[in-house]
């Protein structure tokens, strides 16, 4: 069964931008709390992609659309996003990483109908999304497939296989968003396996490519809302690992580290300060 997404309209008297910012602050704080309570790391890549997932699930995905989270290590951001659209109950977030949970460290193979595929081994999601998009086209069904990859997983040959496949089959019902935070497991993307400007590499294929500030909710939404030009779309979302948390932002170690109590308090303060300042 595929997920039936709901798009939440802003409460009366609130602007879309105001509501989006409020959702973002609330989700970021809840994400930090969930990871802190569970003593779990992987925060950096969750914070970089959270804005993308929120925009997708609140404002973009329709009832015929599909979503694949290829960067499965951002499962926390995915769960928080589902919580923020009312598809995961508050009390279930407390089970994250616990025994007998649906909320495993990477998206589960069963138990959550909102999760199309168990991911976590990188380089799988884009190809899966290609198959879903091709399946929809051959069935003459409406709906788009959205896939979010990390930038590190463009080290994987299978990701490039998927890009070639998408371009060759002109999967114009497919949008792949790359969370371009520039840091991967043990170094920067430039240090580990320099792919050069990813936009140049990708645009060598017949795809429709955009770059956007991945923390600018309005810009993200505008890019994702743009109609397809008859080609598969790739959106490079420039983001910051550990976004919004002063001591974690753009620091590789926060790919892994859990928060201490002191760090957690400081992280919450950072997010609240951003909310007051109204900064992205």
């Amino acid at each position: 069964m595929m997920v039936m997404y709901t798009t939440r309209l802003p409460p009366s008297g609130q602007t879309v931008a105001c509501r989006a910012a409020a959702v973002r602050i609330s989700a970021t704080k809840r994400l930090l709390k969930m990871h802190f309570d569970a003593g779990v790391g992987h925060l950096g890549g969750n914070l970089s992609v959270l804005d993308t997932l929120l925009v997708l699930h609140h404002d973009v995905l329709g009832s015929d659309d599909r979503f694949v989270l290829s960067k499965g290590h951002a499962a926390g951001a995915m769960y928080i996003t589902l919580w923020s659209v009312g598809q995961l109950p508050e009390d279930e977030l407390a089970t994250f990483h616990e025994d007998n949970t649906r909320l495993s460290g990477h998206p589960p193979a069963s138990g959550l109908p909102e999760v199309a595929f168990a991911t976590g081994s990188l380089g799988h999601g884009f190809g899966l999304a290609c198959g879903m998009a091709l399946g929809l086209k051959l069935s003459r069904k409406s709906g788009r497939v959205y896939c979010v990859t990390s930038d590190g997983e463009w080290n994987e040959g299978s990701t490039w296989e998927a890009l070639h496949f998408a371009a060759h089959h002109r999967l114009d019902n497919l949008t792949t968003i790359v969370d371009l935070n520039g840091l991967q497991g043990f170094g920067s993307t430039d240090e580990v396996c320099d792919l050069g400007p990813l936009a140049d590499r990708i645009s060598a294929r017949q795809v429709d490519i955009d770059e956007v500030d991945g923390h600018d909710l309005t810009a993200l939404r505008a890019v994702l809302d743009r109609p397809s030009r008859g080609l598969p779309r790739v959106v490079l979302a420039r983001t910051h690992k550990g976004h919004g948390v002063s001591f974690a932002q753009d620091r590789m170690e926060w790919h892994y580290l859990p928060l201490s109590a002191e760090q957690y308090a400081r992280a919450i303060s950072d997010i609240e300060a951003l909310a007051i300042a109204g900064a992205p």
Partner: protein
Amino acid sequence: MRKAFCDSLTARADRADFAFLTGDLGFQAFEPLRDALGQRFINAGVAEQNMVLAAAGMAREGWRPWVYSIAPFATARPYEQIRNSICLHHLPVVVVGNGGGYGYGVMGATHHALEDCAGMSALASMRVDVPAFDEDVPVIAAELFDRSGPSYLRLGYSQKPRDAAPPRYKAWRKLLDGDAGTLVALGPLAGLYWSRCLETPRADRPNLWVACQLPIAELPAEFGDDVRAGGVVCVAEEHVAVGGLGSQLALEMLRTGGRPESWVHRPALGYPSGRYGSQAFHRRECGLDPTSILDLFATARETTR
């Protein structure tokens, strides 16, 4: 078996949910299927990992995809994709590997699949089918079209005695009676032994069984009777010793109490001489050729006397 396979699938091309993905293989074999399926015949290119992922994605959308390549390319290269994206989700994707065992002969070791049955049958909800004869292929294909979970179909080269008609397909079949123990072969090897056994007096030949499915679901009662009748039980397979028919049968017999009087396992041994040749060459090197197998039973009888 490729023609029987192509014919079987072409006959079902009118199934609207059937799609076929090939890893750039099928020249002078699958043209009829390509013509029958039209857009649903997808050459996914030399990109087996993506081919499997795309098939899983299509299955999520209600399709029944079949993915095809040479056996090692279909199973070993995209193993993780099969595990994570097909098997963990119990999706009805059929992975088809052509030339199981030493089927690609002198093409070399990279083209041989000697560990595929172990790897595939270890995966959650995966069923492995190894047809022995061309006649088995349409029966198995029909089953696979209606199976709810993932499957691996290992195709080989069908051999049988001239003018012989194999018994209708079942996972385990007895091809011939004998009085000198029991021989079980995985898939096409059985046809090879069948011819030689027919030339051998009943007293000197074993009961000949063919097994075509892993994991073993249930052993036929008659097989148990043959084992209890005594003599050597020999398992022959073009597959390594670990995880194939022999080890799975041994476990099943331990579980069910059907212990043989004597047990011989003849698996694929890789490349003992370090040289390469035809499928028949590699079978001889492993003692899987009919002469070696029948000699094994003759020797056992001499020892008993």
